[in-house]
């Protein structure tokens, strides 16, 4: 039986973030915000690549996007306050 689209998406995303995580460690990145931002970008790209075949998969992932973006907004606001403070 062929791999289902949702599973393909998870494999693609897992592979991408593990490789990019190792790369970030390799180049000596120390901020967790950078990891988070890179993972978010990869999440959105993987979603665009895979969910273009199926709109319902995109709808399924929408709560994830909202939570992800809220987390990203939080880190940005925190960093701004840090700079201002």
């Amino acid at each position, binding site marked *: *039986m*062929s791999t*289902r*689209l*949702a*599973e393909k*998406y*998870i494999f693609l*995303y*897992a592979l991408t*973030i*593990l490789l990019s*995580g190792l790369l*970030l*460690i390799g180049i000596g*990145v*120390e*901020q*967790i915000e950078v*990891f*988070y931002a890179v*993972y978010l970008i990869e*999440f959105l790209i993987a979603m665009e690549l895979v969910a*273009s*075949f*199926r*709109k*319902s*998969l995109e709808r*399924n*992932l929408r709560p*994830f996007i909202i939570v992800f973006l809220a987390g990203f907004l939080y880190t940005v606001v925190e960093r701004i306050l840090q700079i201002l403070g």
Partner: protein
Amino acid sequence: MKASGRWALGTSMVGFGVLTMLTSIIFGATSLAGMGLASFLIGLLTLYLPSQPSVTPELVEAYALSSLGNVERFLRELGPESKATYLKVNDRSDVPKVFLPVADNPTAYQPELKDYDQLLIVNPEDPHRTGLLLDAPGASLLALIEKESGVDFFDLGRESVLDALKTGLVESLELVADVKGSFSDNRIKLRIREGSVGLSKSIARLAPKTLARLGCPICSAAICAIVKATKRPVVVENASHEAKYHNLTLTSPGGSEHEAR
């Protein structure tokens, strides 16, 4: 992957991710937190995204069986032995229709638009223009394919319809394993390989006439897609449903040579 295995994998990855992140906070190792975050996210996605097909073959069969049985009874009692014609679609919102004349028609007859609400079209002078006018069995399946893949077949031409059909049936709905086809002059051949949602033997046994004349719902959806893309009527010359393959031979007036995969 089975649901229980997937749940175990997802939970362990989430747990491992949380533990790694907590450990990294204690020891101040950011790179470890990065890998923990990755594990956490993969675990969440593994738990969240559906692992099983959203519909089971049994459910598809249960839904289709009675409707196809009714169409079969119609065909058996009224007894038209002619070839079915999928009618030309004039507008993107039109539901594809199929006309079954009482007697075979050398030209694909297109009933008048005013007759589209009728089930039985009677023309006492011409048996070629008398017959059943049905909504195509795969019309609603085609609508679902269009919704899921975001493609309106009305906007496509015959050169891209097979690719879009394959994307819709194989990738978007995961209904079949493969779709192959060829256009040559006015002849269209389609070969569909069944996937997880197969055409069960009970449907083939219950509605043999419907399957042979109109095609099963999957084949019918494919024919509707072709009709919508080519904007021409299509006559079903032959529809055979074997164990794993559905073979369709269709004719459509006009067209140029085009081979697809």
